[in-house]
C-alpha cells in the first residue's frame, strides 16, 4: 500500500466533519465533556476537607476551654456542635466527624501555666478525611499554645521542617486541572473514533468506500483527523481554564506539552480504531471505548490515585498505559517547569506506545477488510 492521496483523505475528512456537525450527541460530548470536567474537578470535587463537624463535650466550661473552641472554629475547617450527651454516639450516628473532649480542670491548669490536655477523637472509617483532619491539628495546637501560654510549644529535640515545592499551598485544583487533558483525550478520542469507524462497518458503508480507489490509510487519516482536532480543542480549553480561571502556573515548555498531547492523541485514536475494527458495532464499540478509555486515564494514570502508592504489579502495569505518561508530562509541564531532559522518559514512552497501538490498529484494519 504505497502512495497516499491527500485529496481523497480530505474528501473523507470533509464528510466526517459533516457527520459531526449533524450529530448532536457527538457535538454535545465533544464540547460538553471538557466544560463538565473542568467544572467538576475545578469546583465541585475538592480534596480539601472543610466544615468538619466536631461534637464537643466541654466539661470544663472555663475561659481557656472557650478559647480553645474559638481557635477550632476560627480555623475555618471545623464546625463545633455542643453536646451534653456522649459525643461518641454522634460519631456512631454520623452526625459528627470528630469529637473534642475537654476535661474539668483544663482552664485551671492552662491559666496556671501547667500542661493542659484535651482529647480529639476522629472517625477512622473514612480514612482520607481522617488523614486530612490530622493534618490540621498541629496548626490548631500551635495557635492554642500561643493564645493560652503566650508562646509556641517547646520545640522537640528533633524537628522535621516540611515545605511543599511546586504547589506550596497543596492546592488540589493545581494538581487536578492540568491532568484533565488525560481524561479528555483518553475518553473522547477513543470513544468517538471507536464509534465513528464502527458505524461505517455496521451500516455497510465501509465496503462501499473500499470499492472505490480510496486506500485504507486515506480512510483512516480522513476519519480520524477531525476527531484529533476536536480533542485538541478540548485540551486547549482545559489549558485556558487552568491558566485563566484557576491561576495554575505553566512553567514548562509549551512545545513539549503539545508534543505530549499529540502523541497521546495518536495513541488514543489508534486504540479507538482498533476497538472499532474488532467490535464492528457501535453499541459494543461505545461500551469497550468507555471502559478502556476512562478506567486507565481516571484510575490508573495517577490522575487521582498516585501511581507510587499502588502495589508493585500495578506500578509496572501502568507503564503500559499512555495516560500515565501523559499525566507525568502534563503535571511536569504545568507545575514543575520540566524541560526536555525531565520529559524525555514520558515522551519516549508515549511515542513508543503510540507507535505500537497505531501499528496494531493499521494491521488489524488492513487484514480485516473482509467482513
Amino acid at each position, binding site marked *: 500500500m504505497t502512495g497516499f492521496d491527500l485529496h*481523497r483523505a480530505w*474528501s*473523507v475528512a470533509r464528510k466526517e466533519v*459533516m457527520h459531526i456537525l449533524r450529530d448532536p450527541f457527538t457535538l454535545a460530548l465533544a464540547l460538553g465533556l471538557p466544560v463538565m470536567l473542568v467544572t467538576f474537578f475545578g469546583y465541585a470535587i475538592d480534596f480539601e476537607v472543610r466544615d468538619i463537624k466536631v461534637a464537643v463535650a466541654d466539661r470544663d466550661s472555663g475561659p481557656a476551654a472557650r478559647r480553645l473552641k474559638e481557635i477550632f472554629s476560627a480555623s475555618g475547617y471545623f464546625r463545633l456542635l455542643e453536646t451534653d450527651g456522649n459525643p461518641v454516639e454522634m460519631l456512631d450516628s454520623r452526625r459528627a466527624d470528630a469529637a473534642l473532649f475537654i476535661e474539668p480542670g483544663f482552664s485551671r491548669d492552662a491559666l496556671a501555666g501547667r500542661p493542659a490536655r484535651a482529647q480529639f477523637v476522629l472517625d477512622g472509617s473514612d480514612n482520607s478525611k481522617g488523614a486530612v483532619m490530622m493534618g490540621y491539628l498541629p496548626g490548631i495546637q500551635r495557635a492554642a499554645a500561643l493564645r493560652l501560654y503566650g508562646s509556641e510549644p517547646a520545640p522537640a529535640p528533633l524537628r522535621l521542617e516540611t515545605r511543599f515545592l511546586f504547589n506550596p499551598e497543596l492546592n488540589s485544583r493545581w494538581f487536578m486541572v492540568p491532568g484533565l487533558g488525560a481524561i479528555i483525550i483518553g475518553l473522547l478520542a477513543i470513544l468517538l473514533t471507536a464509534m465513528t469507524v464502527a458505524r461505517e462497518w455496521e451500516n*455497510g458503508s465501509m*465496503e462501499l468506500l473500499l*470499492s472505490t480507489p480510496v486506500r485504507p490509510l486515506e480512510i483512516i487519516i480522513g476519519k480520524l483527523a477531525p476527531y484529533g482536532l476536536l480533542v485538541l480543542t478540548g485540551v486547549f480549553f482545559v489549558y485556558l481554564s487552568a491558566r485563566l480561571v484557576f491561576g495554575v502556573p505553566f512553567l514548562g515548555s509549551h512545545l513539549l506539552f503539545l508534543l505530549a498531547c499529540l502523541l497521546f492523541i495518536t495513541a488514543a485514536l489508534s486504540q479507538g480504531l482498533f476497538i472499532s475494527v474488532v467490535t464492528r458495532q457501535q453499541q459494543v464499540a461505545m461500551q469497550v471505548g468507555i471502559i478502556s478509555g476512562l478506567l486507565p486515564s481516571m484510575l490508573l494514570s495517577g490522575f487521582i490515585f498516585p501511581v507510587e502508592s499502588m502495589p508493585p504489579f500495578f506500578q509496572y502495569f501502568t507503564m503500559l498505559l499512555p495516560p500515565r505518561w501523559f499525566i507525568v508530562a502534563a503535571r511536569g509541564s504545568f507545575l514543575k517547569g520540566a524541560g526536555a531532559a525531565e520529559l524525555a522518559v514520558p515522551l519516549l514512552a508515549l511515542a513508543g506506545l503510540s507507535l505500537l497501538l497505531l501499528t496494531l490498529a493499521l494491521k488489524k484494519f488492513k487484514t480485516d*477488510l473482509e467482513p
Partner: protein
Amino acid sequence: MTAGPALEVKNLSIKFGDFTAVDDVSFTVRRGEIFGFLGANGAGKTTTIRMLCGLLIPSSGSALVGGLGFADGGKGIKKIVGYMSQKFTLYNDLTVGENLDFAAGLRKLAPRYACARRRELFELIGFDRPLNTMVASLPGGVKQELALAAAMLHDPEIVFLDEPTSGVAPASRARFWALIRKVTELGKTVIVTTHYMDEAEQCGRIALMRTGRLIALGSPDELKASAFPGPMAELDFNGPAPAAFLRELEKAPGLLELSPHGMRWHAAFRDADSMEAALPASVPRALIKPSLEDVFIRLVEGAGR
C-alpha cells in the same frame, strides 16, 4: 477501452479458511448485457460480485474485468467499475449534494466534470429535487436511484448492483428496472443479483448459483427449455388436491417436477406421452409455459433429489 467481453471469468474460486464460498465458476459477459445472478442466500452471488469489483482477491482462477486482472490487487478494476451494495446506499445524515460530492472526491473527479456528470445522471434517473435535500427524507426508491447515480458518477464501463431493489416498493422496482435498461442502452454492462423471479426474467442472461457453484447459465428462455424439455401442466382442483392422487402422481415414471403454487400444482413431464399416461382425463389441467420460478425450484431447490 478495447473491445472484448466485459467479463471473462475462468475457474474462479475463493476460500475463507476451509469454506469454499465460490467454487470453480466460469462465464463470459458481453458488453452492454444485463447479466443476472440468481440464487438463494449464501449461494455465493454477493461474494462473486465482490471479487469482480476488486473488493476480494480470488483464491484461484482468473477473471478479466473490462480486460483488467487482479495483478495490482484490484486497484485497476476499482477505477472502471461502479458498485452498489445491498446493505448501504447513501449516508442518511448528509444531503444529496454532499453524498455525490463525497463519491466524486473518493474518485478524484474534477469538480466541473463531476457537476456535468451529476446533471446527466439526474436527467437519467429523473431526479428534480434540490441538492440540499437530506437523504433521510427521500423515499426508498428515489434513494436507490440516487445510489445508482453515485455509483455511476465516474462513468464506469461496468456496473455491479447487489440486490438493488431489496426493500423497495413494487412500483419503484419496476421504475428501477426501466432505469437499468436505460443504462445498458448507454453501452454499459450491468451485473445484477436478485431474489425476485420477475426481475430475473428481465435479464439478458442469468447465472443460477447454488452453494458456490454455477449450476446453469443462459437466457431465461434457454434455462426454461433446458430445465423443462417436455410439457408442463398446471393442475387446478378448485380446492385442496386429493392427497392420494398426488402420491400416485409423484411415482409416475415420466414426472420431472411437481410443486405447489398456491392452491394449484405444476407438474412437468419428460415428454407428452408420459404426461398423458400420468394424468387421467378427469384431472382439470392446463398446459403452461414454465416460469423462472419453476426453473429455480427444479435446478436450485430440487437439485438434491
